[in-house]
């Protein structure tokens, strides 16, 4: 898992660079530039989709993960997680398609499909990260007179944060990678240039969509990686 992430991390900039050389050489640059207005408009649409669905997934996923990890949920949590795990095996394209059958076309089903696809890794990692906090730490905290919410906030979450962040990172990678599909159900975004470019066999148009998507993926992964490095406390951060 780690390895493949590293590979994609290395491969994406390299491929982008090679592509850039080829594009410049073949005069494609002008063809791409012809779509500049579309690129700006669709990139914005694309980013709104990513930010909204990804943000919502974080805002919902982390509390759900916390809730499932509470002792009172112990009996049900594993079942819920099993349902979630089965959910992850459904291809994201299918999730998007199912979302359309429920909500029709437009922003709403695209948002919802992406939200669901990103939700799972966040919930799973939050839950697993919190469960992995050693019992003796919670015991020490309780024995010292911390109340449950204080233990959650000052002991459990900081110690699970690295794993939670990994979940967010995976979720956003899935999200950014899936967002071009939103176009297929009328959600807009850079998928419009890519898929239309494929249909028309217009390489310039295709690249006008693909290059910003690739750049966005790299940027988002870089940003989440940086916040993981900086926001997770030093004592529990294997990166530091």
């Amino acid at each position, binding site marked *: 898992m780690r390895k493949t992430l590293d590979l994609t991390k290395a491969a994406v900039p390299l491929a982008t660079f090679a592509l850039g050389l080829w594009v410049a050489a073949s005069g494609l640059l002008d063809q791409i530039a012809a779509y500049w207005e579309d690129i700006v408009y669709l990139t914005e649409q694309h980013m709104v989709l990513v930010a909204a669905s990804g943000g919502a997934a974080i805002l919902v996923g982390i509390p759900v993960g916390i809730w499932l990890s509470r002792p009172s949920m112990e009996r049900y949590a594993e079942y819920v997680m099993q349902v979630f795990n089965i959910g992850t095996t459904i291809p994201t394209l299918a999730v998007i398609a199912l979302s359309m059958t429920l909500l029709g076309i437009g922003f709403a089903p695209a948002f919802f499909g992406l939200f669901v696809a990103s939700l799972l890794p966040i919930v799973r990692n939050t839950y697993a990260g919190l469960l992995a906090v050693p019992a*003796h730490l919670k015991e*020490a905290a309780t*024995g010292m*007179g911390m109340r449950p919410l204080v233990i959650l906030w*000052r002991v459990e979450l900081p*110690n699970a944060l690295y794993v939670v962040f990994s979940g967010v990172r995976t979720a956003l990678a899935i999200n950014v990678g899936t967002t071009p599909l939103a176009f297929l159900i009328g959600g807009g975004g850079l998928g419009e240039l890519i898929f239309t470019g494929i249909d028309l066999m217009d390489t310039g148009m295709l690249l006008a969509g693909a290059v910003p998507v690739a750049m966005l993926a790299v940027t988002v992964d870089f940003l989440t990686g940086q916040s993981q490095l900086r926001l997770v*406390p030093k*004592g*529990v951060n294997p990166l530091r």
Partner: protein
Amino acid sequence: MIRLDKLTKIFETPNGPVVAADKVSMEVPKGEICILLGPSGCGKTTALKMINRLIPLTSGRILIDGQDTAKLNDVELRRNIGYVIQQIGLFPNMTIEENICVVPKLLGWDMKKARKRAAELLDLVALDPNHFLRRYPKELSGGQQQRVGVIRALAADPPVMLMDEPFGAIDPINREVIQDEFLKMQSELKKTIMFVSHDIDEAVKMGDKIAIFRAGKIEQYDSPDNVLAHPANRFVADFVGADRTLKRLRLISAGEVADAAAPVIGAHGKASEAAAMMREHGAAVAVVTDADHHPVGYVRIEEAEGSGAAAGEIAHPLPATVAAGADLRAVVSEMFAHDTMWLACVDETGRFAGTVTQPAVTRALGETYRQAQAA
């Protein structure tokens, strides 16, 4: 003072009820260390955790300084009890300073005062505050973490401490060092301490009293010396071991059995004078000291008798000396190592403090049996 009154815990398990504590009654006087000792699974941890209510009790009462703790709420109770566990339980996400300040912060102390306290406590266990306050637990060795675990429990100066095998996870050499450090601290702090251990040697060393548990019941609650010398029953005798008399050697110091009136003579004194002293005292040797009263050798009665020389001239070198504070185990070990029946004992400044002889050691160990017989 901690008093347990018919403390009982019954765990309801799928395989039926398990009685982990069975009407445990005992009292730990203020300022003393009581060791809960026994084989694994005998209910030591359960008894301890009922005191700070990590495990709710089934029946019975717990009184701290005469007050029934049932009247206090959990959080209030726990913040006034220091708690140390075997796994140490330092929070890895917090610095050493933050770890130590946890309870003071919960109690609403001024942060400045809490930080000052953290630095003082680190000093107390010989960890340089400048170096350690900003570190994270993972940057410390096991022994250092254990020390921090103990001082963290002491941070808010609770009168009562609960310690569950606190030194169980460290190597034997470090453990001895930390035990000694802790005893030194305790001699000043005078906390009332419940201390769980499964190690008889640790119990003998650390305890003012030892409570020996079996299957949730106290088999004997007594001073270490009495537990070793007069085990209440077969179980206790087996648990403390066949070498229990040897273990008692650790409870007595060389100074306690040293004969301060043993013959001693300055190096310039006459050998014949030493001989007279030995005859009078019924001793075979006399210790020769220098001008500072440090032992430098010894003379034998047969050589000193009728000799016109100075004691220093016919003296033999001493095989070894022992410090007055050393325990009899160290004394006997030195005696065996040097194949001798006696050793010169010195005080902290190295001055002669008497001689320790093998018969005196034997007599000291046998004392308690003679008393028991007389009674």
